[in-house]
C-alpha cells in the first residue's frame, strides 16, 4: 500500500519531458518533489504564474509572489506572470499538458466530485471546474477509501459534480486505473503488496482486470 508520497512518486512517472503541468492542492503538490532528473517541466499556477519555483528561503518571502494555494513561492529562470483571464485562457485552450488533482469521488465514467459536501460549509470551487472542464489529460491523486471505509471509486458520483467524463487516470494507495470510455476502472497496476481482492473490495464501480496486472515500480 502506498502512502501520500508513494502516490505522488508514481504520478511523477507520468510526467514527460517538456510538459506544462498544473498541480492541485494536497497530494498533487507533492508530485513536484519527485520529478525525475533530466525531465524539464514547467509548473503553472492558475493565479497567473508559469515556472513556479520552490518556497523562498526564510526571510525572502515576497507577499506579491504566491501560488494558487496562497503559499509564498519563487521564480525560476524563464518564469512569466500574467492575469487570471490569460491563465484560465491557457487552461481552456488546452495548453497545459497534464493536470493533477485530488478528488472526493470519481465515477467509472470519469466524472469527478471534489468541491462540495452537502451539509458542510461550502468554500467554493476555485479553479477546479475550469480545470476539469478543459484539461486534456487529468490524473486524479486520491485515497481510494474514505474514513468510513467506503470506496470513492463509484458507479456514479453521489456528491455534487465538479465535471463530467474528464478523468483519464487515477492513482490511489492501492493501484493505478484508467477510465474505460464505456465505463469502468481498468486496473493497470497494483501497489506493492496489494492483492486484486483487496482492490476489488475497495472499488464500488465496475473494475476491469485486463489479464495479468503488474505490481507497480516506483523507484
Amino acid at each position, binding site marked *: 500500500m502506498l502512502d501520500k508520497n508513494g502516490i505522488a512518486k508514481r504520478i511523477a512517472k507520468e510526467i514527460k519531458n517538456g510538459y506544462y503541468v498544473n498541480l492541485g492542492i494536497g497530494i498533487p503538490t507533492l508530485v513536484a518533489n519527485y520529478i525525475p532528473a533530466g525531465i524539464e517541466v514547467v509548473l503553472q499556477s492558475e493565479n*497567473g504564474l508559469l515556472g513556479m519555483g520552490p518556497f523562498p528561503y526564510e526571510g525572502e518571502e515576497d507577499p506579491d509572489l504566491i501560488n494558487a494555494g496562497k503559499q*509564498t513561492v519563487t521564480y525560476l529562470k524563464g518564469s512569466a506572470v500574467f492575469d487570471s483571464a490569460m491563465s484560465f485562457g491557457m487552461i481552456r485552450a488546452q495548453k497545459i499538458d497534464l493536470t493533477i488533482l485530488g478528488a472526493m469521488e470519481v465515477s467509472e465514467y470519469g466524472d469527478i466530485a471534489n468541491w462540495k459536501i452537502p451539509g458542510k460549509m461550502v468554500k467554493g470551487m476555485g479553479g477546479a471546474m475550469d480545470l476539469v472542464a478543459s484539461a486534456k489529460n487529468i490524473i486524479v491523486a486520491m485515497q481510494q477509501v474514505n474514513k468510513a471505509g467506503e470506496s470513492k471509486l463509484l458507479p456514479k458520483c453521489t456528491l455534487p459534480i465538479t465535471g463530467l467524463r474528464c478523468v483519464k487516470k487515477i492513482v490511489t494507495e492501492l493501484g493505478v486505473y484508467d477510465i474505460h470510455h464505456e465505463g469502468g476502472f481498468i486496473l493497470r497496476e497494483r501497489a506493492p503488496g496489494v492483492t486484486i481482492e483487496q482492490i476489488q473490495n475497495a472499488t464500488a464501480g465496475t473494475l476491469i482486470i485486463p489479464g495479468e496486472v503488474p505490481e507497480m515500480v516506483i523507484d
Partner: protein
Amino acid sequence: MINKVVKNADEAIHDIHDGAVLMLGGFGLCGIPENLIAALLRKGVKNLTCISNNAGVDDFGIGLLLKTRQVKKMISSYVGENDEFERQLLSGELDVELIPQGTLATRCMMAGYGIPFFPTPAGVGTEVALGKQIVHHKGKDYLIEEAFEADFALVKAWKGDTAGNLIYRSTARNFNPLMAMAGKITIAEVEILVEAGELDPDQIHTPGIYVHRIFQGEKYEKRIEQRTVRKRL
C-alpha cells in the same frame, strides 16, 4: 495627457453609494486594494455587492467589510479562511454566489472588451449550469456566461502614472487588470505614483483610458496568508 489623480482614497470613493456593485482586485490577500477597503470602512456604505475572487480573512481584506456588515452579497470563486463569513452565510445575513474562477476572470475581461456573453465549458453538468443556456458546438457543450456589470472597480497596482497607466508586480496582478477594464468607474491605488512619461509604454499592463481615478496608497501591509519557506542548507 489627461490627469486622473485624486488626493486620497476617501476622495476616490466619494460617490460610492449604498447598494453599489463593486469589483475588488486581488487573489487571497495578494494585490488587494487595502486603502480603498479602509476608506469604504470609514465611509460606512452598506448593502454592497462585491465581485472578488476571495472574501479576505477575518481581520483583513474584504473580511473587514463583512465584520461591519457592509456587504450584502459576495460573488466569488472561493471563500474559505473566514469565520465571520461562514457565520453570516449560515445565518442568511449574507448572500453568496460561487462561480468558477476562470469564469469569474473571463466575465470581467469580457466586460472590458465589450463582449456581452461568451461560452465556456466550465460548470457543464454541475449545479453551476442550473438556469443557464447550454450550447453544443463542434462536439462539446458550453455554458453561456455573461459579462459582469459593475458600478466601480477598485484595483491595486504597483506603479501608476498621472494619466492612469498601471503596472502590476508579480502575481499581485491576478484579477486587477481585468477588473480595471470592467468598471464603469475604475479607481486605482498604487504603491508608487509617477508623472506621465515615466513609465515605458511597452510595459504598461492597464492603459490609462480604463482608469478614472488614481492615487498613491499609504502604509501597505501586504499580509501573507500562507508563509511557506525552505531552510537554507
